[in-house]
C-alpha cells in the first residue's frame, strides 16, 4: 500500500505492439491471440505484428533507481519509451503521479503530453542524441528553450547544471570536440536542466568504454544522493544493474519475469533465465562483507574458551583478539587496529575485503550495528568467489 502511494511512475497491464504490415485490424487480432496465450513468434509470423511488451506491471517508487534488464529484443527499451510515450501502449495504463493525482500518459491529449515531457519526465539516450551543430551550452538549454524560457534566465540554469556534471569549462565547445563520456555528461545535464523529477535512461552508458562507464555510474550515484530523482534505467549489464539499481526488473521476450531488490534477484532467481544472468556477474563489487563472513557464533570453541578463528583467537565477548599469543583489544569501529587487524563495515565489498586481507595478513573483522559480528579469512573469501555466498547486508 505504501508503495502504491509512493510510486511516481507505474505501468499497469501495458501491451505494446507494432504493426509491421499496416493491415487493418491486425493489432486487435494480435491482442486477441495474445490473450489466448499465443507466443510472440506465432503472432509475429501470422499477423506481421511485433509484440514489444506484453502485460507489463511495474511501479517505480519516488526517488529510487529502478533498472530494467534483459537481452536485446527483450522489450526493456520499448517499455521505458512508453513512460514518455515515444512508444504508445496499445493497451494498459502508464500512470504518472504527483503524490495527489494520477495521469495516464498513454491516453492523455497531446498538450498534456508535451507539458509532462517539458516539466516532469526527461530522457537520456544511448547514442546521446545531442544536436551536433549546437554548443554544449545550447544543448543543455534545449529543453528550456522548447519551454520558451528567456535566454538570460536559461544561461544561469545551464551554468548550474554544467557545474553539476563538471563541464563548466566546456560550455562553448561543440559536441564533436568532446569525448563520449563527456558527451553523455552533456546528455545528463540536458536531462537535469528541466528539473524533471522522473528520469528515463535508455542504456546511457552502453556506448562508453568500461573505465568511463564505471566512472559515470559512480557520478550518477553521487548525483542521485543529492538530487533524489525517480530513475528508470535500462541496462543489459548485470553488474551495472546490481551496482546502481535499488530495484531490478528482468524482462524476457516482452514480459517481466521478475522484479525485486538486487538481493532478491541474486539470491532468489525465479527461473533459470534469471539465474543465468546472475551467473555471469562480477562478484567483487557486488558481494558484501556480511555475506562473506563467518559469524563468531559459528566458530569452533578452543579448550580455553576462546573461539577458533584460525590465525587469531576471539574472546567470547569479541572485545579482545589474540594474535600470535598477544592480546589485542578491539573496538567495533571500522578502523585499523594495531596496524594489522582491521575492522570493516558489513556493507564493504568483496573486492575491498580481499585487498585488506592481503595487506594485513590476518582475517578481516566485520562490524554491524556497533557490534563485532564475524570475520573473513581466506576460506570464506574463496567460498564467496565460488558463488556460495549469501547476499546483502546482515
Amino acid at each position: 500500500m505504501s508503495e502504491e502511494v509512493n510510486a511516481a511512475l507505474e505501468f499497469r497491464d501495458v501491451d505494446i505492439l507494432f504493426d509491421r504490415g499496416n493491415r487493418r485490424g491486425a493489432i486487435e487480432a494480435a491482442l486477441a491471440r495474445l490473450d489466448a496465450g499465443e507466443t510472440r513468434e506465432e503472432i509475429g509470423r501470422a499477423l506481421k505484428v511485433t509484440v514489444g511488451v506484453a502485460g507489463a506491471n511495474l511501479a517505480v517508487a519516488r526517488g529510487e533507481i529502478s533498472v530494467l534488464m534483459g537481452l536485446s529484443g527483450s522489450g526493456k527499451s520499448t517499455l521505458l519509451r512508453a513512460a514518455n510515450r515515444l512508444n504508445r501502449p496499445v493497451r494498459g495504463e502508464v500512470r504518472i503521479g504527483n503524490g495527489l493525482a494520477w495521469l495516464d500518459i498513454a491516453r492523455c491529449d497531446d498538450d498534456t503530453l508535451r507539458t509532462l515531457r517539458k516539466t516532469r519526465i526527461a530522457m537520456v539516450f544511448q547514442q546521446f542524441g545531442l544536436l551536433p551543430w549546437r554548443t554544449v551550452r545550447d544543448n543543455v538549454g534545449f529543453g528550456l528553450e522548447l519551454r520558451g524560457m528567456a535566454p538570460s534566465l536559461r544561461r544561469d540554469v545551464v551554468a548550474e547544471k554544467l557545474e553539476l556534471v563538471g563541464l563548466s569549462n566546456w560550455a562553448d565547445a561543440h559536441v564533436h570536440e568532446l569525448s563520449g563520456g563527456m558527451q553523455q555528461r552533456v546528455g545528463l545535464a540536458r536531462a537535469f536542466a528541466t528539473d524533471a523529477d522522473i528520469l528515463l535512461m535508455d542504456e546511457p552508458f552502453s556506448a562508453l568504454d568500461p573505465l568511463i562507464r564505471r566512472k559515470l555510474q559512480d557520478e550518477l550515484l553521487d548525483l542521485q544522493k543529492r538530487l533524489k530523482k525517480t530513475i528508470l534505467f535500462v541496462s543489459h549489464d548485470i553488474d551495472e544493474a546490481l551496482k546502481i539499481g535499488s530495484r531490478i526488473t528482468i524482462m524476457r521476450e516482452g514480459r517481466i519475469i521478475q522484479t525485486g531488490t538486487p538481493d532478491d534477484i541474486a539470491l532468489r532467481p525465479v527461473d533459470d533465465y534469471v539465474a543465468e544472468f546472475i551467473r555471469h556477474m562480477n562478484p567483487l563489487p557486488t558481494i558484501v562483507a556480511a555475506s562473506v563472513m563467518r559469524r563468531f557464533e559459528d566458530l569452533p570453541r578452543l579448550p580455553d574458551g576462546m573461539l577458533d578463528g584460525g590465525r587469531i583467537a576471539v574472546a567470547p565477548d569479541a572485545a579482545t583478539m589474540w594474535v600470535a599469543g598477544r592480546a589485542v583489544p578491539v573496538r567495533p569501529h571500522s578502523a585499523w587496529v594495531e596496524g594489522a587487524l582491521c575492522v570493516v563495515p558489513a556493507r564493504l565489498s568483496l573486492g575491498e575485503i580481499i585487498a585488506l586481507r592481503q595487506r594485513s595478513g590476518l582475517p578481516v573483522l566485520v562490524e554491524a550495528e556497533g557490534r563485532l559480528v564475524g570475520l573473513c579469512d581466506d576460506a570464506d573469501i574463496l567460498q564467496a568467489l565460488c558463488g556460495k555466498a549469501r547476499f546483502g547486508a546482515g
Partner: protein
Amino acid sequence: MGIDVRDIEHRETGAARIMAPEQWIAEHKIPVGAVMAAVVDVVRKHGLGFFDAITDIVGFCADGLTMLLLDIPPLLLVVAATAGAWFLRRSPALVALVALGLLFIINQGYWNETMATLSLILFSTIFCMAIGVPLGIACAHRPRLARALQPFLDLMQTLPTFVYLIPTLILFGLGTVPGMISTIIFAVPAPIRMTQMGIARVPRSLIEAGEAFGATGRQILWKIELPAALPMIQAGLTQCIMLSLSMVVIAALVGAGGLGVPVVRALNTVQVDAGFESGFVIVLLAIMLDRVCRPKDSAS
C-alpha cells in the same frame, strides 16, 4: 500524313490489301502534340491578363535590378563583392579569385552582360528556393506527395529545354521573363530534391530527443530538422545556381539579356574569339558563385 505514299501504292498493287499492323498504329496517332497545343491555347486565352501581369512584374523587377547594378560604378561593386566574399568565407584564396575574376570580366568588356545574367540568376534562384525548400519539406514528411511529384520533377529536368521554351514564349512574349521561367522550370527540381533528402536523412534519434523534451512539430522542424538538413539545402542552392547559369544561352534565344547574347551572336556569325571570351566569362562566374555558396566542409 506521315505515311509514305509510294509504300501505300506498292501495297495496293499487291495481291492482298491487308494493312500492316505498324501502319495501323501509325494511322491512329494519339494526339499528344495537339492536346498540348490546345492546352497552351486555352491557357493563353483565359489567362492572358494573369500572364501579362506576371510578365510585367517579373520583368520590371529583373530589369530594375540589372539597371541598379549597372548604376553602381563597376569598381565599387568589385570591392563590395570582394568584401562580401571575405565576410562569408574568410578565405584569402577565394577573395583573390573573386577580385581577379571580376576585374577580368571588366577587362574583357562583358560587365553589362554579366550584371544582366547575375540579376536573372538571382531572381530565378530566389524563386526556386522559395518554392523548392517548402515543397522539399512537405515531400520529406509526406512520402505520398513525394511519389506523386517524382514524375513531374523527372519531366522538368529531362524534357529538352527548347520544347517548353515554345509555350513560355507564347505565354510571356519575348524578353527576360520567358527566359527566367524556363530557367526556373529547369532548376527548381534541384532544391526540392536536395531539401527532401536532407530532411529525410535527419537521424531518428535527434527527432526523438526533440519529442522527449516536449517539442511541437514546428519546433522539431525549425530547431532540429532544418539545421540538420542545412548542408544539403545549401548544396541544393549551389546546384540551383549552377543549373540557372547553364540556361543563360538558351534564355538568350528568347530575348533575355546577359552573357548568353554574345554567345548566340558569336554562333550566328561564326566568331571564335567572341565565343570563347563570353564562354570564359560564364565559366568564371560559375566558379565564383559556386565557391562562395557551396556548403562549408563538415570536417571543420
